[in-house]
């Protein structure tokens, strides 16, 4: 979910480098980890955006914590420090994943269900909905949400396929309330 146009530009540049060096998947994984750390540790960004901490020190912190990532990602982070844009890191990762997906013809999907799904169930979902989403294959993530009561809800990008009991009950409620509202 990118909210800034800036992150798209950086992501596009990084993606081009990844394409040239044929490391699209590795960089994607690394970025996902970096994003997770940035989101889990809010303090990190506070330090990185603090004006009193010199840039050299910030880069040292990054190098120490993300020493194992590829140079492309590390250099991107350095660049963001120099430009005071470290806050876009999570967005950048999202945009990169989107680009990588488009490149591979895949799509990310989240399947919400009441209890964890088995491997076969997940793969059958991905087969059925890949066609629906216009992608070659789906990378399915399963999330458990007991609020659904029954059935499943699938989210692909910004589209939701709602086949859950909760959704149906909500619709019935909406319809009954709507009829009532129409009457004044």
């Amino acid at each position: 979910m990118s909210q800034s146009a800036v992150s798209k530009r950086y992501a596009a540049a990084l993606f081009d480098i990844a394409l040239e060096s044929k490391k699209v998947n590795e960089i994607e994984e690394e970025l996902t980890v970096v994003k997770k750390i940035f989101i889990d540790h809010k303090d990190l960004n506070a330090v990185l955006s603090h004006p009193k901490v010199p840039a050299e020190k910030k880069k040292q912190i990054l190098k120490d914590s993300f020493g194992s990532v590829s140079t492309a990602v590390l250099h991107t982070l350095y660049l963001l420090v120099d430009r005071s844009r470290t806050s876009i890191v999570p967005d950048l990762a999202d945009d990169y994943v989107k680009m990588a997906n488009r490149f591979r013809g895949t799509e990310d999907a989240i399947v919400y269900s009441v209890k964890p799904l088995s491997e076969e169930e997940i793969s059958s979902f991905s087969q059925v909905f890949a066609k629906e989403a216009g992608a070659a294959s789906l990378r399915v993530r399963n999330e458990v949400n007991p609020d659904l009561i029954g059935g499943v809800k699938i989210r692909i990008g910004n589209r939701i396929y709602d086949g859950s009991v909760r959704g149906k009950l909500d619709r019935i409620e909406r319809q009954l309330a709507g009829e009532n509202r129409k009457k004044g």
Partner: protein
Amino acid sequence: MSIKAEEISTLIKQQIENYQSEIEVHDVGTVIQVGDGIARVHGLDNCMAGELVEFSNGVLGLAQNLEESNVGIVILGPYKDIREGDEVKRTGRIMEVPVGEELLGRVVNPLGQPVDGMGPVLTSKTRPIESPAPGVMDRKSVHEPLQTGIKPIDALIPIGRGQRELIIGDRQTGKTSIAIDTILNQRDQDMICIYVAIGQKESTVRGVVETLRKKGALDYTIVVTASASQPAPLLYLAPYAGVTMGEEFMYNGKHVLVVYDDLSKQATAYRELSLLLRRPPGREAFPGDVFYLHSRLLERAAKLSDAKGGGSLTALPFVETQAGDISAYIPTNVISITDGQIFLQSDLFFSGVRPAVNPGLSVSRVGGSAQIKAMKKVAGTLRLDLASYRELESFAQFGSDLDKATQAKLNRGARTVEVLKQDLNQPLRVEKQVAILYALTRGFLDDVPVEDIRRFEEEFFMYLDQNHKDLLDSIAQTGNLPADEDMKAAIEGFKRTFAPSN
């Protein structure tokens, strides 16, 4: 309001029957910012401009700004319980309002929901609120008169059915009264009236509704109200909702009058909305498309060709000026869009000339061809008479020795001004207007004292009703002036019975 148990049962029955079959598919977005009736939403891929979206609490919104990473949405309803992170659904529909005869006599908000507490409006049809105006070949030139029942307007600034006539003036100059009188006068004219109140006090709207109800005019009137307490989006939408309800009748061959009271408030609401959506401000901080805002609304007024049923939609937009300044942004815009304007002046109003129409600055560009022949004949010289009277009046204040011709002109002018005065909520039928204007322009009033003119008029109409109904009927039916000697006989006959007050 409660709903009947069987109705719930049938609904639930349908739901249960279809339970297995449906998987709902929808495009969603997430609210990233909300405030002042505007929400910015991320996601909502493929959202259309002007599309309705639904927030998770059931409130609807209107997609306005489609930007690279978000969509600016105008919230149509209470926005206090919308939070950041809420889900927003596309509906795939564009905004519509209910239309049809069922709305007559009702007071509704811009979404078409009743606000008069008289139960549901059982309409079966809806129309999109933004629709293209009739094209060139669908139209016909304006040729039927719209009788406002107000002497200075019907005589000097005639309005035709399908015309757009601007009513402009400062606050408290009687703009709304003109609209109400016009609506009252449509009682037996086979017209449907729509009064759109934009940004007015609820008490004022209530007053208007009560006047209409008392005079029996509510039966053919729809009142659309977006009062001052409503959020800006509703004020912005109100005129479009009104014209949409009118269009339904027009395309069914009926004649419709739509009054927008007033468009300057709509422009202000639109400015508020546009600034919150971060559109660049232009002159007077209005957005760049404020001209288009009004032109696309007023262009929907039309006289349809016979092939399209010959219906018409007349628009009476109102614009409030500040201290008589008609060269401000919104007034000049609307003046250039409309087919003429009626300018109401506060000095005239306070000097007792009511309605305070300034005949010098008012003009009707197409209505002349819609005037009935009799009116054209008697009112032909009226505008010139008045103009030369105003000119002489200021000049004559200095000198006392005036020649006969000047004296006569001043005399006639003073009587003309007197005749054109009219009381509130008493629209006058066109044949009576013709009769009194005939007496005036042919010089029969020159020997009646100025202070007796209004009493003369009143008693003259009573006399005509009792003794010369045939004359009035013939004007009303044929539209032509009766023979001069008949008119003369009638007027002289009355003058013999009329006693001047001193």
